[in-house]
């Protein structure tokens, strides 16, 4: 994480702000879920803005801002610029804030038509054409992946911020976590389609532990070869429509997964 930029009183604990954009609140709940560590956290951080947890709202600048959700409306756009200007360190949390989230399924489609179907008075709705990650608009100091994020990883990011060191968050594949847990591969041993080999670790191989293939909710790993996995999944019997759906999940708007989905879609439309 980069060093602090804005001046702050040195004899008080650093301030924390938690912001919500287009999201389900699940990632913020992961923070509240750190029950055992919450006491230690408030000893070392002063919670200045966190409407989900406390009604006290202290003005900025903030030492650490955690941002949940994708940028989806013109109002969001205004707010994210303000928050960036008011934050020393800005960390985005979750698939929405880092990759656009499931709501990015609307991107690239006719937004007016969607609104006319969903809302009785679409004229009251102001929206951007696309729901996109925060990093499309402002500098982000660290992106924490997941849908939702893993609370252990969140604590690691906060501990790293407090001690001014880089967070230890590995970007290897989910397979590494599968194998460290001694789980047999669901793809090799069961023929179950799985995005694990190209998905960023962090969940602890949650789905394969229950015999399910990985849905890719932590987004692409450090060197995702989606073309090769597409071919293997096709060999396992997935048609191009199924392939496209698999990629267009919680991290479907990440450039790598989007390209994989477009690829499958393109093949489907070949003459």
């Amino acid at each position: 994480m980069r060093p602090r930029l804005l001046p702050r009183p040195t004899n008080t604990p650093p301030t924390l702000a938690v912001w919500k954009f287009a999201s389900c609140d699940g990632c913020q709940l992961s923070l509240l879920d750190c029950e055992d560590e919450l006491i230690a956290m408030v000893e070392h951080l002063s919670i200045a803005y966190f409407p989900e947890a406390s009604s006290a709202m202290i003005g900025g600048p903030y030492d650490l801002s955690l941002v949940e959700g994708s940028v989806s409306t013109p109002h969001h756009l205004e707010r994210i610029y303000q928050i960036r200007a008011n934050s020393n360190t800005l960390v985005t949390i979750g698939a929405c804030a880092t990759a656009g989230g499931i709501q990015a399924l609307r991107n690239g489609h006719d937004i007016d038509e969607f609104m006319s179907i969903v809302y009785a008075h679409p004229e009251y709705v102001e929206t951007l054409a696309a729901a996109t990650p925060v990093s499309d608009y402002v500098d982000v100091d660290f992106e924490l992946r997941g849908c939702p994020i893993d609370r252990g990883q969140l604590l690691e990011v906060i501990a790293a911020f407090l001690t001014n060191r880089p967070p230890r968050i590995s970007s290897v594949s989910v397979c590494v976590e599968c194998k460290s847990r001694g789980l047999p591969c669901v793809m090799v041993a069961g023929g179950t389609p799985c995005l694990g080999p190209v998905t960023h670790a962090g969940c602890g191989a949650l789905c394969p532990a229950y015999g399910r293939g990985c849905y890719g909710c932590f987004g692409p790993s450090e060197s995702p070869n989606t073309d090769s996995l597409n071919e293997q999944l096709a060999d396992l019997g997935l048609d191009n429509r199924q392939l496209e759906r698999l990629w267009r999940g919680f991290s479907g708007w990440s450039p790598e997964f989007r390209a994989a989905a477009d690829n499958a879609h393109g093949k489907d439309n070949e003459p």
Partner: protein
Amino acid sequence: MPTERTPVIIDIKGLQVLVDVLIEQGNEVFGPQVIDDVIAIRPLTSVDQLPAGWTDDQGAGRYRLHNDHSHGRFGYAVGPQAWKPLLHEPTLHTLSMTQSHAADPVEVHVTATRKGRRAFLGVRPCELEAIVRLDTVLLRGPNVDRAYRSARSDLMLIVVNCTVPASTCFCTAMNTGPRVSENVTIHDLEITELVNEHDGGPRYVVTPASRQGAEILDVLGSRTSTVAMTNQDALDIEAGFRRAESSIERHVDTKELHDVMIASSENALWAELADRCLACGNCTAVCPTCFCTSVNEITDLSGTTTERWRHWDSCFSLEFSRVGNAPVRSSVASRYRHWLTHKLGTWHDQFDESGCVGCGRCITWCPVGIDLTAEIPALRTAALSGGDSRPASGDQ
């Protein structure tokens, strides 16, 4: 080893007595079992837990079990994990350090290593060879691995020879199976399963391979009926091994393989493999000889305590090749090349043996079915003809 290698024959009840004796002598016994549709290694107290009648169907990127109702308990080849996780744990807490105030000394607490006797029942010949490799690296080098040393001490190794290899096995090429080699001396007992489908249950030919193994066999003889091996039994065993050997489908020509690997560094094949390789690291995790780890130190929220963890790492991970601020093997081609060149080439330079024991796990458990045995002939041809004329692309 001066022990007299006289084999005795026991039946399945005798095998249970062997397990009982091992447990009575304070061992935790581990053995193969069917768990989640694969052959896995788990604590074992009864021979009923062994995979009766189960056999495996393995191919590149594919593993299936089925039960053919044979009487055998060992009629399959290696499962997804060798004994490596028990000897060289995937994640290990090694140290914690505390300093409450800047003026205080740092208190260091080194995590205790595991204690207690264990017995591994059903170690395959290639797996035993893999333990020899791990011993060389982790015990005989200039730096002894504490955790591995304590996991290896008080350990009984009971080999069960292979009579039903999988299609991914190539131990005959690597000289590591399907029957344990006379040159290996780290085990205690050698067992061969004799299955005659016409006359009831399986029988086990048990041969002592160490003093401890001979002692166990003496106790066994006093507790259950053992019979001596007949000439017919000896002929049956030999016929079984010949069947097993001739059923092995994959082969690797190991002649000057080290030199072939060294001569192949510029081969365009690495880039072609990188088009298929997912860099997922499955091959290194399942390989019984891959030993690489990374060490991380994690501070707590107060910054007063640091925990040091060690975890398996892989040459397929970008982070693992980071030196200073950048990875030295940034392309997948260079990472694949590094892995295979180490296994088959530079391992010889470092440790005077092959890093590959021919167990075939990296073939089966590669999600896209990359098969090293299929790639070596092309490397050899190019190396012999003075190198591949095509430039290696995407490589560094």
